[in-house]
């Protein structure tokens, strides 16, 4: 028996065990490396009351989950659309008291994830000292450093049940390679693995294992940290697969426009998620070839 187990999975197998109320952590940042195909698949499963985590920044990934009614709590240091404005689903749901927000600084989430990765009960940060964050978030406490007595904040370890990531390339054993920046994805995978959760990665392309052994210094995340690999070309669309293709600004603005009204967002979710039974259908229906040609990640300007 010298055959290694392939981790190439169906979406059903990869998302098996997903339940209401679980803690979901999403890789990437802002408009980049967001596993949007997997986000849509989670929405299609009508899961509820998720605690959704992303660091450092989230945009359409978490906002779409909120708009679709899947979320009870948000743990994201920056939740917005940068130069395109605030997050509409997030603003609406918070103003109506429908979701709660785990207020934090980026370094609180990193300390919480690092604590999980190192099997510690809590992490420590300077952020939050002199602010209201410990009054707003029961998982963050004002403490004195054990050695110096200096005012600090402590934050409870955060152990996600499920991590979803998007990488440019992966092999059947779960090794992952990014073309551009990998943001906090390694930390996300480490915290989820050591905390006992499951890690699912979509990749634009499944490549031979030799592609990794030929240049192991270019592997970003080890197969030891990945449970399932799903090949999903343009699986981050309308976000970028950083370094491979750009985010589609027009498609993101379409979402922001739709989110302005109840009917608009319901139609959007139906059109982009509920009525499309597979990734292939999504690509056929919503992604045109010209936009992909324009989305090729250019590193220069003529």
């Amino acid at each position, binding site marked *: 028996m010298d055959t290694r187990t392939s981790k190439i999975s169906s979406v059903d197998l990869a998302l098996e065990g997903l339940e209401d109320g679980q803690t979901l952590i999403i890789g990437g940042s*802002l408009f980049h490396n967001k596993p949007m195909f997997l986000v849509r698949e989670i929405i299609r499963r009508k899961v509820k009351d998720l605690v959704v985590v992303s660091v450092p920044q989230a945009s359409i990934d978490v906002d779409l989950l909120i708009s679709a009614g899947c979320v009870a709590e948000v743990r994201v240091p920056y939740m917005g659309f940068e130069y395109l404005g605030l997050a509409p689903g997030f603003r609406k749901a*918070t103003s109506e008291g429908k979701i709660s927000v785990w*207020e934090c*600084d*980026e*370094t609180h989430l990193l300390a919480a994830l690092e604590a999980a990765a190192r099997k510690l009960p809590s992490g420590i940060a300077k*952020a939050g000292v002199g602010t209201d964050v410990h009054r707003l978030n029961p998982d963050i406490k004002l403490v004195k450093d054990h050695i110096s007595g200096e005012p600090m904040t402590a934050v409870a370890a955060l152990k996600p049940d499920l991590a979803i990531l998007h990488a440019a390339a992966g092999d059947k054993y779960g090794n992952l390679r990014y073309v551009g*920046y990998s943001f906090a994805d390694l930390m996300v995978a480490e915290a989820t693995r050591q905390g006992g959760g499951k890690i699912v990665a979509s990749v634009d392309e499944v490549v031979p294992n030799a592609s990794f052994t030929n240049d192991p210094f270019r592997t970003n995340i080890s197969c030891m940290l990945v449970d399932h690999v799903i090949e999903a070309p343009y699986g981050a669309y309308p976000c970028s697969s950083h370094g491979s293709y750009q*985010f589609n600004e027009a498609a993101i603005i379409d979402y922001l426009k739709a989110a302005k009204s109840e009917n608009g967002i319901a139609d959007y979710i139906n059109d982009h998620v509920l009525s499309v039974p597979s990734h292939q259908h999504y690509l056929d229906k919503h992604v045109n070839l010209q936009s992909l040609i324009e989305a090729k990640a250019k590193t220069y300007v003529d």
Partner: protein
Amino acid sequence: MSIESSPVAWPELAAYVLSKELGDGEIGSPGGARSEIPLAAARLAQLTHAPNLMIITSAAGFVANSVGKAPAPLFHSTMDYRNIYAGTETVLNFMSVFYTPRDWFFAGGLQVDSFGNLNMTAIGDIKAPKLKGPGGAGLSYASSVARRYFIYMQQHSKLSFVNKLDYVTAMGYGSGPGDREALGLVGGGPALVFSPMAAMDFCATTKRMRLRSVHPGHTVEEVLDNTGAEIIVPEEVPTTALPDAETLEILRSRVDPSGVLRNLKGARND
């Protein structure tokens, strides 16, 4: 001549004024919701008086310097691949992004008070806020350790400049002198606040916000009418100086050739 009718749009003025605050050899991060302005400020500083200044894109690890390189247009998103390749020489790993000390960074906020404390959290009851902000990002961490930082407010009103914040997301000078030292915040605190109407600094002894200059086309009275925070107004308040022709030429031909700053929403109060 007023700023609206002058050939200099206020985001360009902001980039120019902020660029003059940045020193040679410093390491800093542009950031905030309108990061085009601080990114342009930092690149302009590199191309004028601070050739050894290094820019680190804040929530990612792209270390860049524009000196001696082909002009690269600004793009709106700091992590746009074309922005990253404009002079990036090193990509830091994710933890180094947080380890590397900054001489300065830029922050925005829903509200700022007289001592430069910032609210990015929410306005109104936290359980159902009138306006939920995007959250603290890395502001609390950066404001505790950076040597100094600059605040740019997209609006100058009694709602944004207030005496009491709804929530403190990042501490500036707390309630006055000595507060940062008492809490072990090693960074120096906020140095400058820039709005579409005026530039404000902080009094060295009281740590209270102080009107430094008023932009062309605006008056001290107008600034005070739109400021809910108690600020110091010196007897003489100069008009914010516009960039000279040579600096404006560098800003427009090398830093922002495609006019991203000139065409920002609200750039001309229109």
